[in-house]
């Protein structure tokens, strides 16, 4: 039920938890004339009370963690999260720093353990910074208008030439005899 509610009108609350502002400007760029998201019924709202969707940018730093938790819980229930930028999706370049929680996954882990909060549907928009069109595409995926193109791919190598001394010594002959495709065939 929750996502169907946002098909026509979606109010966004933008939370920058330690981002370098590259993504925040792209999030704001989305409201400017070239990409104007108001035609899709999206409005930037100033208080989490009014918001339906929270846009996370930045790899939640330790300082903003308590504030991010408060803002997250202050949004009325049928809510959704859009993680914009590589920092929010997986911690980006700051992943190992001591002062950073490391993206939305770690934030959800903290929320699950300590606050027992239900995790809302989330869209991850990688990019550093993602183009405004990528953010619009993310919201279209959240709403279900478009299916996501990016899928997990797992390639395992099947047949492999048996390594022997003479194969190694006259590798050139081996290379010509078989076209490149067969040598490195795979699933």
């Amino acid at each position: 039920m929750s996502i169907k509610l946002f098909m026509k009108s979606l109010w966004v609350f933008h939370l920058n938890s330690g981002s370098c502002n590259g993504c925040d400007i792209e999030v704001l760029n989305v409201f400017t004339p070239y990409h104007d998201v108001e035609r899709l019924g999206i409005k930037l709202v100033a208080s989490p009370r009014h918001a339906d969707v929270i846009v996370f940018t930045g790899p939640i730093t330790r300082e903003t963690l308590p504030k991010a938790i408060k803002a997250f819980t202050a949004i009325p229930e049928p809510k959704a999260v859009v993680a914009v930028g590589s920092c929010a999706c997986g911690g980006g370049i700051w992943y190992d720093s001591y002062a950073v929680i490391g993206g939305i996954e770690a934030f959800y882990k903290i929320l699950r353990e300590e606050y027992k909060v239900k995790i809302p549907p989330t869209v991850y928009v990688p990019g550093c910074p993602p183009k405004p069109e990528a953010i619009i595409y993310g919201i279209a995926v959240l709403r279900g208008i478009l299916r996501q193109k990016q899928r997990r791919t797992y390639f395992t190598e099947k047949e492999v030439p048996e390594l022997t001394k003479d194969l190694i010594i006259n590798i050139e002959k081996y290379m010509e005899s078989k076209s490149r495709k067969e040598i490195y065939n795979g699933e």
Partner: protein
Amino acid sequence: MLYLVTVFANIVALLAIAPIIDGIERKVKAKLQCRKGPPILQTWYDLIKLFKRPSIVTEEYSIVYIISPYIIFANMLFALALVPSFTRISLSFFGDIIVLTYLITSSSILLAIGSISSGNVFAAIGASRELSLTTLSKLLMALTLAIFAVLKRSLMLETLFPIIPPYTLSAIASIILFAIIAYIESYKLPFDIPEAEPEIIDGILVEYSGKSLGILKYSMYLKRILFFTIIVYLILPREIPMLLTPVLYLISLIALSVTYVCIETYCGRLRIDQALKFTKTLVPILLVVLIIAYFNY
């Protein structure tokens, strides 16, 4: 019986049109900013979504914070019943101008008290701004209505309405002044200080969410419609055939809102004291017009 049905039909039609007028305003504003802008029904979609959402309430709420949106909405409905809109028939009775001013003033004050009682600092700041601004603008509104009453020597909205036929200076001046005050009342840009988004985060509406926010927003649109209808009917001559009034009314309504939006898109926001200074300069002008109207010059 038919009388009540038409008034009821009037109100229902107005309830339907108010968000659409706001949708048109947002569309025109976007077009003026080189943007495509939202569909006309966008405000309706927002309201429907808001009504479906639960509203979070802080622990220390007071009863005023809960019921004020509903009372404000009721006030607006009753005010709209007083005013003739699509048809000339309305619940007008003797002395309904005074009732009208009370309705509008009470709804603003209630809004301010409601947001103060929510205990949030931003709401308090927004409310104090709202109170300082509304006291002045309500005074101006009361004065202009007094001018109309003096001009027409009656306290009944019905007789008031086509104020133009005697083309006196004061009549025209009062209409222009009423248009300015309607602009201030409708929270259009230079004066949308209580709701100043970037400064104090939607000041007044900051603590409301979900259903109550929807109702508050709805009543704001109704208030705009109310002022527009009063302006339109001040000018509309009485002799127009019965069938033509609704169409003419609708067109002039849209025209009026479009002009207001054109003014709004190109104005920055005034500081609270600058806004007060501007409204203060209006008071002497109104008094002068009142005196002239008295001698119906």
